[in-house]
């Protein structure tokens, strides 16, 4: 039978925001009521920086909709025992029964109070990849807001799988939760493990492809030849986790092998802390009256406060200063008398002198000549002094950038890397200017949708940053969440995102094991745990033990697409209408992760392309029903009226679409009000669009100046300096935190406290993982290889593992069939291509096929994605290995920001040998 002529064909506009590289706009073709194919939205070609195109993941959404393995009715667990080897015995129930069960539990909890005896929220929630689930959960944020305190600290990957240190230090230094190259203007990019052409979405792929045609050079520095490396001009196969040595070598060349005049002297003098004078105690010399840091004024020949009008700061040198003070931890003031004050820049030069390329070569296995050449190419390409006109304003043009990838900018060594990267930009004036290294968005600071407006003047001429207090009066001595973020990590702050950015592995670890001198209330189990678009039983580390912890949770409510390894322990499965079945309006445009740089701002609608399958219900309907049944309706509607969830308040200047708190609003009623209010806010009332308008058109935008891509003009306007190179604030905060912890007889964070350094010292970051093996009683020589994880565009962060189409097309990309092994190494172990192998660490083993390649270091194995499923339909039959199964969780492997990295020492052998 040939295909019948369709009776109706329509194309429905919507968006894909499955990974942080979105949102991308697209349409879905619907033939006779059936979604058949995803296509670009060419109506958006002029405004969307990827010209209305979505990446390969979006093309899996048709199968995602009709996947026969979906959970399509609410299900209740019938087996009270939980565990990997306990069949949950899920039985279908009605929505009424399911919602009443949740609501009864919520009411019962609320009656006893939101916090338990340990002061921790009784309700916890975990959402997956980088906040993207919020773009699929309708009005659930309003429900969560209506509830009150919730513990978001059980991570599903955040902190350990993301570019975590970049997030925290990036926001501190240049309001850069994520950092990118200003690719459209760049000429030279040093990409250290940044797998941009895989993880950064269609916008980034297009920008970098354009740049290649234009002739830019990208140098890819990483242990294996990734897709991004393949598309780069040069691959530098560095030894795993030695990136700081490589970067220190680059800095050495710039500051120790070139005269100062080769660098961007005005930028260093006026926009950085380079001229600030550092005293013998390692703290800034300060004016005793104002406590302001001093610099040496070449014009008057004396030390003056940094903001003295008309001063000409000395960038280099050592000067005698009388009568200055320094301010140490806990506001301890040192009267210094007459001392030598050294400029921060000179301190830097002296600090970097030992880190020669020759020194780095021995550590990172990159020839000194290569390091020196790359540093000099970078400096030459920086074109110091060049300018460019952007929207009528002349700005510096510094077409060089350094980008960092996962496991480079998280975990031990990451502080050194992000400091080095930002400093490399500062040295040539390439921070936050056209062509240079730029931030994309803020999450710790606000407002989230406009990082330039998040700039506020702080102490000492630097950006304000809301650290968690470490002074004796205000330090949080008791956890407010199970990952202890407020106690341990000052820099993460206490914004709504901070908890999920804290040391999320501690939330899991401390459920089972705590240091002897923990000296805080033992963390409790959450009484109710919501989970959505997140599968920590696969996506975290030491997953066997993690599953055991999840199994202890007394009441887990999972919004479920299919059964998976985490919701296998759930008490209730609630099937939400998925990507192509439900309604949500989001903001688009501006600047965003990872290279989403638009020249407009706007709004886009996700809408039901087809009706929900089975009994799946719109998340907004679920949220409203939960609020109503839990007795939270008025608070929920009030949250909707405030615009909770990232869209506009329903009442603003010149418009009022507020909802009645006494009535449970319908799904369309809510989104119609949101559409009208958000478009009114966007256009200052010029163009108010209702839900029907968005259903037809999909999106609307207003123009935005490209000047909003760059922070430096705003810093100039506020008279602010970037807080580099010297980290006096971090040094002081670290000392203060040490004082607090030691006052409470807590010494178990001392290793992390050592990271608070004003100028980062080299330390053997990889050694932490080697020591973990030895500490566990194993022999390092039994685990001679490094295992790393790398991402996959086809699978990246979107729960695509059960989508057959993704499996089929991913197999065209090397590495998706198993574990990448250097062919010479494989020969040494007698391993043939395609042969099944055991990859074993000191905590366990994972199994898969060997994929032989020349494109990986001989001492390194690489696994793409996160697999080793045992419950998720389709995925559990793939037989793929996973680093997560055999990567340990340990306090020793947590850095001061609370992050870890995807790296572990392993042995590999043929399965036949393993069985013998």
């Amino acid at each position, binding site marked *: 039978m040939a295909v019948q002529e369709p009776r109706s064909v329509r194309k429905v506009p919507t968006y894909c925001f499955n990974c942080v590289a979105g949102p991308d706009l697209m349409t879905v073709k619907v033939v006779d009521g059936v979604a058949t194919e995803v296509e670009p939205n060419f109506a958006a070609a002029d405004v969307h920086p990827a010209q209305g195109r979505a990446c390969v993941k979006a*093309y899996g959404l048709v199968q995602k909709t009709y996947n026969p393995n979906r959970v399509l009715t609410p299900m209740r667990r019938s087996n009270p025992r939980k565990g990997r080897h306990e069949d949950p015995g899920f039985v279908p129930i009605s929505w009424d029964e399911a919602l009443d069960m949740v609501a009864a539990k919520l009411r019962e909890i609320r009656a006893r109070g939101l916090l338990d005896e340990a002061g921790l929220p009784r309700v916890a929630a975990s959402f997956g990849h980088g906040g993207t689930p919020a773009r699929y959960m309708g009005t659930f944020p309003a429900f969560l807001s209506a509830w009150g305190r919730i513990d978001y600290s059980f991570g599903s990957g955040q902190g350990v799988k993301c570019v975590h240190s970049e997030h925290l230090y990036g926001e501190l230094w240049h309001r850069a939760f994520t950092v990118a190259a200003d690719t459209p203007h760049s000429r030279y990019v040093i990409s250290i493990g940044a797998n941009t052409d895989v993880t950064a979405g269609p916008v980034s792929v297009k920008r970098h492809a*354009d740049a290649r045609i234009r002739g830019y050079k990208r140098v890819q520095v990483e242990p294996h030849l990734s897709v991004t490396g393949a598309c780069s001009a040069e691959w530098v196969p560095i030894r795993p986790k030695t990136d700081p040595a490589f970067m220190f070598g680059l800095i050495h060349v710039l500051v120790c092998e070139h005269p100062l005049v080769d660098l961007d002297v005005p930028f260093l003098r006026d926009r950085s802390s380079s001229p600030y004078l550092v005293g013998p105690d390692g703290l800034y010399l300060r004016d005793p009256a104002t406590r302001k840091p001093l610099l040496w004024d070449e014009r008057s020949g004396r030390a003056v406060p940094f903001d003295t009008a008309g001063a000409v700061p000395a960038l280099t040198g050592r000067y005698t200063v009388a009568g200055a003070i320094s301010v140490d931890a806990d506001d301890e003031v040192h009267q210094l008398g007459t001392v030598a004050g050294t400029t921060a820049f000179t301190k830097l030069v002296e600090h970097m002198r030992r880190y020669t390329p020759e020194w780095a070569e021995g550590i990172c296995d990159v020839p000194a000549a290569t390091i020196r050449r790359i540093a000099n190419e970078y400096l030459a390409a920086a074109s110091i002094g060049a300018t460019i006109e952007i929207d009528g304003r002349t700005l510096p043009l510094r077409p060089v950038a350094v980008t960092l990838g996962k496991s480079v900018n998280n975990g031990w060594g990451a502080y050194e890397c992000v400091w080095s990267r930002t400093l490399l930009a500062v040295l040539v004036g390439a921070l936050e200017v056209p062509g240079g290294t730029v931030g994309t968005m803020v999450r710790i600071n606000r407002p989230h949708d406009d990082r330039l407006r998040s700039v506020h003047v702080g102490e000492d001429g630097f950006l304000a940053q809301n650290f968690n207090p470490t002074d004796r009066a205000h330090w949080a001595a008791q956890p407010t969440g199970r990952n202890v973020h407020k106690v341990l990590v000052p820099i993460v702050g206490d914004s709504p995102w901070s908890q999920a950015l804290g040391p999320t592995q501690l939330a899991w670890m401390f459920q089972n094991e705590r240091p002897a001198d923990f000296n805080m209330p033992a963390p409790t189990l959450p009484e109710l745990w919501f989970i959505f678009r997140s599968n920590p039983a696969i996506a975290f580390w030491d997953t066997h033990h993690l599953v055991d912890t999840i199994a202890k949770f007394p009441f887990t409510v999972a919004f479920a697409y299919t059964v998976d390894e985490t919701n296998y322990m759930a008490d209730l499965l609630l099937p939400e209408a998925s990507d192509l079945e439900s309604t949500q309006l989001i903001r688009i445009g501006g600047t965003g992760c990872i290279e989403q740089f638009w020249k407009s701002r706007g709004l886009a609608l996700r809408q039901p392309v087809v009706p929900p399958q089975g009994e799946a219900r719109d998340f907004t309907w679920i949220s409203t029903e939960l609020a109503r049944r839990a007795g939270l309706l008025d608070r929920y509607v009030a949250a909707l009226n405030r615009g909770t969830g990232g869209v506009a308040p329903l009442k603003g200047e010149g418009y009022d679409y507020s909802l009645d708190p006494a009535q449970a609003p319908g799904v369309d009623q809510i989104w119609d009000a949101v559409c009208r209010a958000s478009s009114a806010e966007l256009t200052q009332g010029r163009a108010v669009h209702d839900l029907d308008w968005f259903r037809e058109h999909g999106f609307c935008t207003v123009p935005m100046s490209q000047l909003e891509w760059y922070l430096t003009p705003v810093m100039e306007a506020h008279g602010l300096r970037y807080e580099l190179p010297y980290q006096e604030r971090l040094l002081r905060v670290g000392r203060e935190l040490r004082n607090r912890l030691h006052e409470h007889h807590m010494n178990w964070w001392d290793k992390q406290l050592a990271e608070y350094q004003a100028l980062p010292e080299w330390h053997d970051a990889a050694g932490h993982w080697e020591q973990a093996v030895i500490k566990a009683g194993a022999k390092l020589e039994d685990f001679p290889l490094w295992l790393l994880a790398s991402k996959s565009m086809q699978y990246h962060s979107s729960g695509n593992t059960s989508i057959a189409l993704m499996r089929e097309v991913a197999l*065209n990309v090397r590495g998706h069939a198993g574990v990448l092994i250097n062919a010479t190494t494989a020969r040494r172990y007698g391993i043939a291509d395609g042969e099944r192998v055991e990859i074993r660490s000191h905590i366990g083993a994972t199994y898969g096929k060997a994929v032989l*390649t*020349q494109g990986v270091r001989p001492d390194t194995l690489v696994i793409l994605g996160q697999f080793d499923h045992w419950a998720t339909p389709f995925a559990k039959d793939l037989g793929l290995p996973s680093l997560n199964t055999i990567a340990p969780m340990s306090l020793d492997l947590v850095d001061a920001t609370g992050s870890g990295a995807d790296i572990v020492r392993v042995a590999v052998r043929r399965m036949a040998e393993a069985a013998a």
Partner: protein
Amino acid sequence: MTRYVMAIDLRRCVGCQTCTAACKGANATPPGVQWRRVLDIETGEFPDVQRTFVPVACMHCADPPCEDVCPTTATKIRADGVVTIDYDLCIGCANCVMACPYDARSIVHEQEFAYGDEPMPPEALGADHSRLSVATKCNFCQDRLDVAAATGQVPGRDPEVTPACVNSCISGAMSFGNIEDPHSNVSQLLQQTKNYRMHEELGTEPGVYYIWDEA
């Protein structure tokens, strides 16, 4: 005169397989059948290694070996250069599969679905029994080209009449158009760049050009 060709800029391609997936959606090909895909080719030895992404599909040759060996004349060349297969004439002998130097043709004998024996609704809608036991391959989305012939739209410029893979390409690597028109986008692009066609030495006159540098 019209001859539709494709130009693929290898400097742009990142091997993401978006075109592979888009083609499968647009043409409802069964699991395992890929009318187009992107090869991931590694050359050299560590540490001097190159990895290259090369999209491949039917090359729509001007002198296609598949046509020469077809015993039933099922394989033909249209006036616009598109190499087609008449499923009513094809007997599934696989001569063409063997003859094609580009590994571009597939034959399946049973209807297969992504998840077991039962089709999902889009699979049921797209299931085309006339494609069983016959050769299939990329046809440059010929239905769209036929629309263009009727509407006057320009393939390669107007998305509605441009092959799905070209529309989907996120790096902008793929271009499509009439090489006989010196003003078409592909003609202009090929003039401005260094390019080659795969296995040109075989004399098949492929209609897919690979761009590798500026002219």
